[in-house]
Structures are given as C-alpha cells and as structure tokens.
C-alpha cells in the first residue's frame, strides 16, 4: 500500500512542528524518516497512524483519504520505541490481541499466532510475560503483534534505540530481511543516520518540521541537497573554506599541489585512521584514511604535508 502525505501541518500550541510536509511513499518500500530530535519525525509517524491529529493537509493510503479515519480502522501496524507490551498478558495473548478484536475463531487464532511466533522466533516463549523477555525479544513480540492484523503499512518508531549495540545490528538485518520477504510498506523513524542508511531503501530527511531531501541513501549521501543534510549524514571537514567529507581529501608530500600544512595529531580507531592537520592560516581539517593507506603513508606528528581533494572525487562531481 502506498502512503501519500499532502501538505501535512501540525502545531503543538504555537510551535510549528510540521510545516507542509508532502511525500509519496511507494508500495513495498522501506522508508526511513531521519532527523535530529525535535525535527517532527515521530509526530509525522503518529499522524500516519492516526494517533495524532493534524492541523492541515491530508494523509492518503492507496489513494484513500484517511485523514479523519481513527487508528483502529486504518489497518496499520505500529510499534512504539518502548514496544508497549501488554504487561498483564502472555506473549501469546499479546500477539493474539488484534485477532481477538477481529473475532477470529479460536482454532484459527491459535494457528496464526503460532505461525507469527515462529516468524519472530519466539515460539518457546509463548507462555512467558513481557517482563520475562529481553529487549530484543520484546521488540520482536511487538512486531509479531503488529503483523497479526495483516496490516498494509508497518510503522516503527525508533525500533532499535532501546537495544544494546550487538542486538541492535542483528535486529536491523533481521527486520530488513523480514520487510523484504513480506513486501510490506514500512516507515521507520530514526535519528541514527548509520541505521537509516543500512536498513532503508529510501531516506526522508527532516529538519525543523520540513523535508530537507528525499532519495536513495547513496544518492543523498553523495549529493546532499543542503548543508544540513551534508552535515547530518556524515562527518565533514573544511579545507580552504570548502566543506568535504574527510575521505574525499588526501595527503601528499610537500612540493606537490595542495594546501601546505603539518600533521598535528594521528587518531587510530581500528580500521579507520584520522590524521588532523593544520595549515599555514591556522585552520585545522582532518583526513580519513583506511588502516592500509595510513600504513603506506606513515604520517608522523609535526611532519609537513599538503592536503588536496582526491582526484576521483572530481570525476564523481
């Protein structure tokens, strides 16, 4: 199911949190709403679900205007950041909740819930209570509960934010694969650009209630439309007054073309090495090198170098 947003506007009191946001989310895509906190991304997600009313504009699902349709009639799967488990119900009953509401007969309900629990790998935990589950298990339970009503749209609010690093990266891959398998139109909200680039096939970058840029992750990364997007999507550094990604500039020997500078620090972060340099005007920039490049270059603190954009960067531009 496709989602279309037309001029969605929302005020909280006198604060404008969404300013005429319009977007077309294609059927079957996984779109990440990416932005800093306060950018309005979670509010936008809640508006799609019908949990928050809007002050202007329309929301359409597959061409049907649902702006005034309550959440319970939208057939939308929604997962909160805290997963909002029904604490007094077992895992099985949590997942069965939506089916019970739809008056699905007991035997069929049993079958469908078992199938969902298999899908999210929670079969052995059917009789447990949410408090007995780990964070990752709770998240998968919330996902199964949302999928039970066979929603046409899946909305995930910061789905990985509450998990520790390792579980998070596992679940990202898992959710990504599950979404592809089911082909369900999905929007996820995140403030983590790495997560958005890894999981989504489409980025919508929000800032202060406005869309800054929409596009495929690679495209947006390489061709940021605004200074905000460039700065938000990855590290930047300035060289001679121009903003670059730190891997777009390189070091050369004194006498070659480039800005003359000297190395003031070398920071090793495992695979990545950052060389911080200071030019004659006193402004600093940093160059991102791979471990291999750094070994070949063997930059020492105090050494004189030149800094220049990489040749291949110009080909892309």
């Amino acid at each position, binding site marked *: 199911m496709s989602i279309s947003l037309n001029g969605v506007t929302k005020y909280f009191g006198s604060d404008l949190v969404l300013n005429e946001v319009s977007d077309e989310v294609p059927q079957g895509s996984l779109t990440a709403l990416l932005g800093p906190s306060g950018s309005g991304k979670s509010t936008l997600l809640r508006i799609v679900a019908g949990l928050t009313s809007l002050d202007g504009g329309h929301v359409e699902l597959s061409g049907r205007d649902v702006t005034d349709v309550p*959440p319970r*009639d939208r057939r939308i799967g929604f997962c909160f950041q805290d997963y909002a488990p029904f604490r007094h119900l077992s895992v099985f009953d949590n997942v069965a909740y939506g089916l019970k509401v739809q008056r699905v007969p007991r035997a069929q309900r049993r079958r469908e819930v078992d199938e969902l629990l298999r899908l999210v790998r929670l079969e052995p935990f059917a009789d447990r209570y949410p408090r007995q589950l780990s964070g990752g298990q709770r998240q998968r339970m*919330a996902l199964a509960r*949302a999928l039970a009503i066979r929603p046409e749209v899946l909305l995930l609010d910061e789905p990985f934010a509450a998990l520790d690093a390792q579980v998070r990266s596992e679940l990202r891959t898992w959710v990504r694969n599950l979404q592809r398998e089911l082909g369900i139109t999905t929007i996820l909200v995140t403030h983590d650009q790495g997560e958005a680039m890894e999981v989504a096939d489409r980025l919508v970058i929000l800032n202060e209630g406005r869309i800054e840029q929409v596009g495929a992750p690679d495209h947006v990364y390489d061709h940021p439309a605004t200074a905000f997007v460039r700065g938000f999507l990855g590290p930047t550094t300035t060289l001679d007054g121009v903003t670059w990604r730190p891997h777009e500039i390189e070091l050369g020997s004194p006498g070659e073309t480039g800005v003359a500078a000297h190395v003031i620090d070398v920071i090793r972060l495992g695979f990545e090495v950052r060389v911080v340099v200071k030019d004659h005007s006193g402004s600093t920039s940093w160059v991102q090198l791979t471990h291999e490049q750094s070994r070949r270059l063997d930059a020492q603190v105090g050494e004189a170098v030149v800094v220049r954009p990489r040749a291949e960067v110009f080909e892309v531009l």
Partner: protein
Amino acid sequence: MKRPPLLLRIGVLCYVGVLVGVPLAFLFQQAFRRGWGAFWTALHDHTMDSALILTAKVAVVAVPLNVLFGVGVSLWIVRHPSRFTRILDRLIDVPLAVSPIIVGLILELTYAQNGWFGSALSALGWRVIFSTPGIVMASAFVSLPLVSRQVIPLLRVIGDHQEQTASTLGASPVRIFCTITLRSIAWAVIYGVTLTLARVIGEYGAVLVVSGNIAVVTQTLTLNIGANFENYNSYQGFVGAVVLALMSVAVLLVLSIARQRERRRSEYLA
C-alpha cells in the same frame, strides 16, 4: 543482618505499646470481662445491629460511587491534562485537609430543609440531612481522593502507549478501557477501595453532624459506640468498638495483600 540499637528498639516498642497496644488490650479485656455469653448477647443488641446495618448500607453506596469517581477523574487528569485538570487535581485533596466537623456543617447548611439547596430538594420530597443520603454524602466527601490518589501515579507511570497500540490493533475505546487500562490499574483500585472502605466505616465527625444521630434510624456504628459511652452504657460501647476494630483488621488484611500485589506489579513496571 545487624540488629538495630537496643535503645531504638525499646523506644519504638514503647511508643507503639503506649499508643496502640495497651488501649487495644484494654478494649478487648473490657469487652470480654463478663464472659462469652454476655458478649454474645451484647452482639445482638438491636440498636447496635441497626447501626451496623446502616454503616454497611452507607459503605455499599458510598464506596462504589467514589471508585467510579476516582477512576474517572484520574483518567481525565492524566490522559487529558489542561489548566482545569491541574486545579481539579488540587481540589480533590480538599476533603482530606478539611476537618470532618466542617464538612458536616457545610453539608448541613447547604442541604438542610431550610438550607441553600435543601429547600428545593424538600419541595421535591427529598430529605438529605438527618437521613441516609446525607450520611452517604458525608462519607463520600471525606473519602473522595483516596482512590484517585492511588490510581493517578500508576496511570502516569504506565503511559498511554499500550492503549494506543490497542487502538491500532482495532480495539474500540470501551474495549481498550476494559482489557488494557482497567487491568493495568486493578490493584491500585483495590488498594484505594480498602482505604475508602476503612474511612467510610470509621468516619465520626461529619456523619455526627448530618445524621442527627437518631438511634436505630440514622445512627451508624461509630455513632452508636459514642452514644453508648455517653449514656453510661460502656460495656455495650466496648463490644461495638471490638466489632469495629475487627472490621478494620479485615480491611487491613485485604490492604496488605493488595499492597503486595501492587508492589509486584510496580516491579515489572520498572
């Protein structure tokens, strides 16, 4: 575990003993001083039994009313906050701060047959003061915030994400209230009910003013006990006091169970 200092133990035990232990022992000793037979006969005193029944009747009406009000007002204050609900939140506490005598007087002045509002009611043939409705009102008034004070903090901690999730799963507001909200706050409500019940059963001052304290007609158990002591019928008073004390113990038992369950609940809320 290390024992508390000797002085602390002696101090605490003496304090509790002087305040609670000795008077309670005296109460039971007095009630049973004439033996079981006399106690049994006194239990069947007609005036006391009518008083006990009236207290039960008042509790049966006032407690459910306050539970309905308490849960409703809690939902309003927590889920739909506004400037008005902030004022409401403070106002609910007034009955706890005001002396029960004042509560009784205000009710009497308002609802008595020549009172502010009572004249209109008596024109309709309704009698509030010196009658059961007045006792119910006084009891409900003094125990007004006891349910909401338990429910409001829990509702705040639980948040509304479970309810909103249920709505995306297709549940109607009524269904969400019954299957999610009420289930989440059940033990807090029960805790509030026991507090309300204890207060309603034990209330003296406010009820004394509005009821007129007419034996057999508008005399609750606490009033009956008081009347017996005043009329030099102290033995009957002691027996009534024992009945009241045992009712309180029963309420306390339920309360401690509810408390335990609620603590377990809040553990997995954390």
